[in-house]
């Protein structure tokens, strides 16, 4: 099983690197011929929901998260890049994670834990071909959960558990846009996506104490995102998108962003 996952991971990496390399080679002449456009600055608000398969030791569960972020985006930087920085609140629900190294084994079923979510995203438009434009994208996001304390009820003495999750996610891959529509632009992204995190749990049962950190990893290493940018009126853009993580039955998500240009 592990061997098959390793092979799939390697194959995905080779495919993405190969495609990226060929794209960069082909993009050179096209970039030189491109007309200069002014950069556009936008302020955005994004709400997203996703669930992603995660694993630790030999166990798996699904991490569900609701995120709300503010975003600052610059489009057409150097006539090539879109660059954005985002930050806001993440509310992941890492239900199912088991802490079996503590004196009393704990299984987290406590729902969402609020934390700070921030990151950056870059998109490069490299190669126009007919009505399509092929490019690259890269995104990094990090979540730092606030400490959340739970009472362990049902024991004969006072007991608490303090949960502190954190995770990061890095994605990079291909981005294709369809540019033939006036006022809107559908896009598709196929990316390698690596997820890693740490879920720290502290247990205190009267004077019995224990602490354990569980290292989390994503179950799938590829994400496919489909979305549509709608340039509604001047300066306002609406971007709905859906995302799947192939290889993980529960890996699915989506969101809606609204941008205001200034």
């Amino acid at each position: 099983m592990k061997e098959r996952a390793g092979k799939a991971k390697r194959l995905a990496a080779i495919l993405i690197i190969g495609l990226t390399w060929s794209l960069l080679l082909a993009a050179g002449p096209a970039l030189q011929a491109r007309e200069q456009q002014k950069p556009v600055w936008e302020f955005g608000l994004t709400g997203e929901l996703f669930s992603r398969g995660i694993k630790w030791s030999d166990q798996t569960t699904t991490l569900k998260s609701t995120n709300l972020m503010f975003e600052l985006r610059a489009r057409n930087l150097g006539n090539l890049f879109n660059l954005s920085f985002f930050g806001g609140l993440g509310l992941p629900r890492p239900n199912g994670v088991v802490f079996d190294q503590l004196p009393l084994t704990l299984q987290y079923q406590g729902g969402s834990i609020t934390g700070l979510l921030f990151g950056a995203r870059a998109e490069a438009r490299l190669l126009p071909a007919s009505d399509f434009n092929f490019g690259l994208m890269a995104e990094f996001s990090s979540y730092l959960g606030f400490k959340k304390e739970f009472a362990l009820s049902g024991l004969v003495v006072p007991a608490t558990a303090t949960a502190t999750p954190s995770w990061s996610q890095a994605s990079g891959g291909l981005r294709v846009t369809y540019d033939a529509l006036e006022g809107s632009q559908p896009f598709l992204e196929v990316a390698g996506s690596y997820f890693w995190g740490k879920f720290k749990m502290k247990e205190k049962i009267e004077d019995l104490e224990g602490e354990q950190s569980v290292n989390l990893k994503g179950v799938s290493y590829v994400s496919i995102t489909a979305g549509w940018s709608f340039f509604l009126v001047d300066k306002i853009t609406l971007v709905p998108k859906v995302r799947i993580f192939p290889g993980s039955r529960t890996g699915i998500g989506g969101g809606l962003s609204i941008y205001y240009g200034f």
Partner: protein
Amino acid sequence: MAKINLKKKFRYLPIAISVLLVLAMVIIVNQIEAQNKIKDRLGTSSQKTSSRLEEALKSRLNQTPPVKIKAISQQPALPGRPKYSAEKILVRFKPELSVQSTESILRAYQPRDYKLIPKINVYVVKVGEGATVEDTLAALKANPDILYAEPDYRLRLAAQPNDQLFRYQYALFNPGGTLQIPGSPTGKNRADIKATGAWDFAKGDPDLLIAVLDSGIDYTHPDLASKVISTGKDFVNDDNDAMDDHWHGTHVAGIIAAATNNTEGIAGVAWNCRLLPGKIISAEGEGDYSDLIEALIWAADYTSGQARVGVINMSVGGEEPASSLEAALEYAFNKGIVLVAASGNDGLAGVLYPAAYDEFCLAVAASDYNDEIADFSNSGPEVDVAAPGVWVLSTIPVALTEPGYLPYAFATGTSMAAPHVAGFAALIKSGKPWLNPGDIMKLIKYTPDDIEAAGRDDYAGYGRINTERALSPFKIVK
């Protein structure tokens, strides 16, 4: 590049597509959540069904309450519980036959129904109206086209041991109602140590030894022979043969770690752990502190290959404190060993030694089948927890068994309560060997079911031990 002007004709399209995409996403996420909820519900309902089945089996068994152990030896194993299905059998035909032929042969036996399990070509056949499984099997076996035909045997819950006398062990699983113990008292449902639930998560490590410092162990007993690592040490007669010439040590040893799930006898709490006998009590039932002290040091230092002592049970006690005894306890404790002792059977205030050495030793009181503290159980601030100690069935030496009886007997006392805790400690230490004895003592103290007065009290300590709560994952909920 021809631009298509959609702005006027389809000005609401972007909003419609956005709404559709978001709706699709919400529906998919909700479906996943709904599927997970259904899975959770199915899990819960199957657990409920299992417990209902267990209840049904228990109440059926209770219809014939045997009082004496002798009676069981004359009955077949698990009376009243059929070993196989009364309506289904499994049939496999010779491989050269086609499906058409096999099914026409099957139809000749007029089954009510049948289905093929592909890959292994085995038919599950429901016998015909009025026919019995036995008759149909006999007829099928006579058919030369059939490779084999066999009953559809019953399954049981994995963690429910198949030991013949398990149903008399209310301490491990108390079904409530009329109990099959002397006097046939009415027991409170689940006034037990929740062993069956705990065994789903821990069955113990064979390399973890529990030293029984007592009157020795009958290491030839059929339910103990495979569990006793050596003939041990006899500190009374000063030799290396801790054979039990009393009965007490063998009874205690059976409660801790009798061979479990071996279709005979009783189940032990520490299913897979092994025992090390140290004889410190004479045939007359007496012993000296010096022998206990020596035995503590010997057990603490004992190794055999990978096997090491992790728990010491002392169902013994004396009224007087002794610094040398405390020092021996401290020595064993510092070697990482969990020490468990009985609080005493005088029904008075005042816990016996070594149990009263609170820092190093768990003091165990005796509770009964109704989760009430036995009136003989000593009380005091040193009492840590309680465990069943009234009419507890366990092993007795074969040599001391009356002819015609099985080598098992019911006994009462805090001596019978302590080994439940020792077995429990062994299960914890097997699963989490990195925990120090102090942490294991705390885990045992803080996870029981509160009985008697609310909170800690001098009679039950923190309560009657709950092995399942300490060994199964504790759910953190909002």
